[in-house]
């Protein structure tokens, strides 16, 4: 298989598996888990086989998708992309197992959970591997949607739904800014792929800077950067598998990933890069860590440390704008000790002039390696006891499970605090090195706050570990009913998380192997922290090949050098953090003031602006709407005329036919006119519908008369259908006395205005000047209009022999020579003479292959429009059903009952039916 298709299959494998899992009946859980596991497994396998055959550098040739909007299936499996894809798939694999244990035997939750989770996996794999901007945007928005669905998991809980909307609106608005930025960047540079842009390079002019700022807003929103960070702690309303996966390990890194994708392109070229990114990252880093210390709910603590770490990662990319420079400490720089003694000479001397970025992917991986376990264990502990820290006092001593869980949690928290012996320690050192070298490169006083920020963040993290440790392992007081107590608390803190009230907590706990999967995935992941932190060369061997920017250190170092500041910064972190953790200060719960940002915005929009705009536009009176629309059309017409006065000239080119030929037309038009005049006079609704129908059927006759059988056929069917629909709807409306018509003169005026406007529009569009087409006939004559183009190309292409393939309109290209024998062209006046064709030296472009131009336009030339139209049509029908089926079917529609069981497996079922099922089938 071509590489691009292989990787596309890898991207879509989880989604397909998710959909397949819907076919499995609800009660079969084992098979469902197996299918869900197959998704990430297939993805890993396919990505692995791609790496095995093509390595990590090659960019597969792109496949065109929609050339006009620059969308193409262009993938970029470089180290960064592959790293992200593998991270998503591998952690996803463990999360599938964890979710099974977390939801227990709750079959309805699992039924709904896996497809949604796997949809996210596909979206995230797509983001990671996309090279084309537009393709990445598609997947990017898909991640927002799946995140929305997962945060609002408890869809009957208004608080959870609110949080889901908050997350969605925040990230989607960022996404819009990003879309603008990427389009600007693409249009400005002419390159629509990262790889192409990297090759071409950019100039740091104003437009590029604007594009960068817009893109970075998107990254900020996605990666929860200050001041848009509030959605991430709110997203903790999601079930813990989601928090562990989306909101710590993968999705929130999308913004970091995007920054990582762009830094080689923009960091050096755009002067604003460090000035914008570093402060935002640094503020986020400190602020998140500070709030985290002052939370009591485990998930909230870890959510804010995630915010903090995301700030660190963003800050890290901000620092990449500088280069390593020689400085007074060169000698000591060269003394850095590498992973093995023999690499001691590497370091600054070798790194001179390289970007100030040290093993960036390692930083991201490191965070996933401790944050996902933290969340997994927070969920596990919340599952068996509570998530509120004060209630977990002495949890370690409870029983065997609690000892295991506490150990794993503290191991992960040990890495959070970046103590020596973990991968995290080295990663934090890397970051301090970067700050240090950034200072050496600039000698700017602005780096002093950054030093302080780095130390403060580390200090808070150590303090969090200290407090977790002292609380969890404290000698227990008498706690007899901790489990029960857990359900009563949790909402009293004032801040709005309600994750505590999850339905799963009410489930009976399982016995057997599965409950162990509450902590096993966490233990597996956190093990890497210590393997990489303790065994020299292990990281290099396992993950080193995925690291694209091995600047400064050619090999992964283990032991810090005591001659440079970074190690003393780490030391300061530990000492200050321990002190802070044990001290009584900063113990009170502190609500993040930014929690009010979105609710304020939301209230402003929905309670103030919304009703105001709604009241302005939606008057609830049909007359107002019709008047507004018709006046609007007239205004547009008048506006056009004011620029082109020649529009209201009586067209001279028109040739009038003899009156005798026009007589049937006159007759029918008279009927239409009479029906139109009757409309306002007739009072009864049903009669009005019939009068309207008269006009409609008469128009059908006009079409038939003037040889538009297609239109006539369509019109007559439409008339029948709309007549039935009208009568049905009218029978549902309450009876209303038709009073005396009001505002008659104004209404007449409006009617006259729209009449004049549409009359002139019709007249000018039929005989007026039309723009010429860029297409020429074989003789080199320009086509008069688009209609002629369609006529000449709907069956065979008659005119475009000399046209380049990309110019062929409607996308109908034949790369070979089309041979056509027999099969006459009924009623077609533009049949190709056989002798003009068959010359193999000429590339002949096929037409649409249909003699019925109308249909060829509908399904071929304008197929895209038609697809949009039928989509809208389908959505409208969904809307009608949703509105009408408020009352459940009963009585004479029992026939629908047997279908219900079939419907349950139908993924397209509407949410209302689904909700019905949930209340029916949930065990609680």
């Amino acid at each position, binding site marked *: 298989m071509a590489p691009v*298709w292989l990787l596309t299959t890898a991207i879509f494998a989880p989604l397909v598996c998710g959909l397949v899992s819907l076919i499995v009946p609800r009660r079969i859980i084992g098979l469902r888990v197996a299918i869900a596991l197959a998704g990430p497994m297939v993805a890993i396998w396919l990505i692995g086989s791609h790496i095995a055959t093509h390595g990590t550098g090659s960019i597969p040739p792109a496949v*065109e*998708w*929609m*050339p006009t909007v620059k969308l193409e*299936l262009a993938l970029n499996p470089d180290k960064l992309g592959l790293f992200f894809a593998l991270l998503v798939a591998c952690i996803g694999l463990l999360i599938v197992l964890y979710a099974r244990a977390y939801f227990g035997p709750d079959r309805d939750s699992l039924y709904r959970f896996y497809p949604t989770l796997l949809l996210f996996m596909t979206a995230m794999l797509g983001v990671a591997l996309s090279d084309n901007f537009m393709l990445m945007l598609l997947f990017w928005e898909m991640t927002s949607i799946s995140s929305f669905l997962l945060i609002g998991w408890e869809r009957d809980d208004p608080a959870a739904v609110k949080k889901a909307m908050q997350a969605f609106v925040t990230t989607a608005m960022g996404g819009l800014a990003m879309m603008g930025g990427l389009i600007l960047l693409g249009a400005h540079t002419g390159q629509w792929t990262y790889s192409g842009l990297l090759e071409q390079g950019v100039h740091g002019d104003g437009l590029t800077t604007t594009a960068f700022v817009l893109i970075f807003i998107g990254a900020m929103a996605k990666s929860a950067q200050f001041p848009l960070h509030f959605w991430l702690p709110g997203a903790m309303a999601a079930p813990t598998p989601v928090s562990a996966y989306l909101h710590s390990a993968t999705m929130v890194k999308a913004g970091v990933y995007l920054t990582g994708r762009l830094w080689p392109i923009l960091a050096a070229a755009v002067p604003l890069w460090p000035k914008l990114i570093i402060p935002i990252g640094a503020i986020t880093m400190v602020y998140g860590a500070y709030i985290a210390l002052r939370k009591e709910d485990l998930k909230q603590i870890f959510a804010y440390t995630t915010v903090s770490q995301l700030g660190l990662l963003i800050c890290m990319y901000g620092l990449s704008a500088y280069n390593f420079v020689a400085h007074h400490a060169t000698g000591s720089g060269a003394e850095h000790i590498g992973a093995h003694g023999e690499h001691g000479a590497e370091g600054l001397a070798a790194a001179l002039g390289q970007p100030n970025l040290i093993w960036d992917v390692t930083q991201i991986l490191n965070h996933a390696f401790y944050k996902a376990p933290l969340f997994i264990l927070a969920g596990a502990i919340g599952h068996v006891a509570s998530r509120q820290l004060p209630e977990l006092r002495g949890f370690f001593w409870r029983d065997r499970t609690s000892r295991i869980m506490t150990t794993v949690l503290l191991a992960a928290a040990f890495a959070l605090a970046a103590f020596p012996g973990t991968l995290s320690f080295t990663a934090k050192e890397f970051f301090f090195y970067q700050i240090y070298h950034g200072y050496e490169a600039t000698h700017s006083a602005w780096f002093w706050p950054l030093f302080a920020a780095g130390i403060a963040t580390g200090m808070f993290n150590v303090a969090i570990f200290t407090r977790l440790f002292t609380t969890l392992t404290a000698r227990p007081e008498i706690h007899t009913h901790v489990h029960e107590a857990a359900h009563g608390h949790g909402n009293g803190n004032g801040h709005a998380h309600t994750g505590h009230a999850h339905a799963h907590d009410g489930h009976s706990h399982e016995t057997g192997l599965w409950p162990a999967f509450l902590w096993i995935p966490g233990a597996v992941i956190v093990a890497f922290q210590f393997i990489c932190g303790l065994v020299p060369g292990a990281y290099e061997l396992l993950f080193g090949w995925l690291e694209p920017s091995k600047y400064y250190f050619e090999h992964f170092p283990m032991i810090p050098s005591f001659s440079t500041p970074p190690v003393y910064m780490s030391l300061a972190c530990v000492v200050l953090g321990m002190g802070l953790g044990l001290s009584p200060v900063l113990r009170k719960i502190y609500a993040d003031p930014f929690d009010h940002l979105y609710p304020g915005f939301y209230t402003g929009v929905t309670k103030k602006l919304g009703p105001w705009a709604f009241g302005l536009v939606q008057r609830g009176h049909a007359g107002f709407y019709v008047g507004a629309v018709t006046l609007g059309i007239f205004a547009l017409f008048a506006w056009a005329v004011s620029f082109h006065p020649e529009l209201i000239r009586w067209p001279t080119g028109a040739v009038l036919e003899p009156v005798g030929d026009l007589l049937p037309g006159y007759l029918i038009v008279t009927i239409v006119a009479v029906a139109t005049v009757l409309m306002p006079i007739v009072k009864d609704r049903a009669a009005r519908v019939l009068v309207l129908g008269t006009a409609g059927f008469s128009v059908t006759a006009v079409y038939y008369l003037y040889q538009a*059988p*297609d239109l006539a*056929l*369509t019109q007559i*069917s*439409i008339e*029948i*259908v709309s007549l*039935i*629909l009208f009568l*049905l709807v009218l*029978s*549902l409306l309450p009876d209303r006395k038709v009073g005396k018509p009001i505002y008659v003169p104004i209404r007449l005026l409006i009617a006259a205005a729209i009449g004049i406007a549409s009359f002139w529009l019709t007249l000018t569009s039929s005989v007026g000047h039309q723009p010429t087409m860029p297409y020429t006939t074989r003789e080199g004559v320009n086509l008069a209009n688009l209609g002629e183009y369609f006529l000449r190309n709907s069956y065979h292409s008659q005119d475009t022999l000399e046209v380049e393939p990309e110019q062929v309109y409607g996308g*109908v*290209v034949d790369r070979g020579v089309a041979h056509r*024998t*027999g*099969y006459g062209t*009924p*009623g077609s006046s533009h049949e190709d003479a056989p002798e003009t064709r068959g010359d193999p030296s000429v590339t002949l472009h*096929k037409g*649409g*292959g*249909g*003699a*019925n131009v*109308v*249909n*060829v336009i*509908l*399904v*071929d030339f304008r*197929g*895209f429009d*038609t*697809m949009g139209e*039928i*989509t809208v*049509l*389908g959505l*409208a*029908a969904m809307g*009608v*059903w949703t509105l*009408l089926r408020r*009352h459940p*079917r009963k009585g*004479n*529609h029992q*026939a*629908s009952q047997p*279908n219900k069981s079939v419907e349950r497996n139908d993924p*397209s*079922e509407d949410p209302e039916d689904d909700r019905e099922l949930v209340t029916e089938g949930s065990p609680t």
Partner: protein
Amino acid sequence: MSTTILRTASRFIVPLGLLFAFFIYFKGHQTPGGGFVGGLVASVSLVVHRMAMGGKSLERMLPIRERTMIAIGLLCAVGTGTAALFFGLPFFTSNHGYLSDAFDNFEWATVMVFDLGVMLVVTGVVVGMIDALSIETEEPDKEGSSR
């Protein structure tokens, strides 16, 4: 609305109408017709059946629910567009050719699948909407049926 005359007539009207719908769908690329009109004609026939025989009968007659029809139709349409990608051509590139002499050189085109999708969506939407509205008019209580 259901009278003996309508019921009897519908036995002829409905099959013929459906047949005609498929006829104009198949001929649509060469002569007047196409998926959209075909869908409308088919839905009118089905609505006639519903008027004559009632909603239950319509439900029994249709092998799939209307919403499934819409879903399949949209899949057909999107599938036609996507299929081109697998040949390395832009989205919605279409192709056509001719069957052998045995089939009178019938001209096939990939857009026929697309057109079928249009037809299914149109039928599903129209029949589904009218069905839903009819249930609403029939349901509440019998004294309202005189409207």
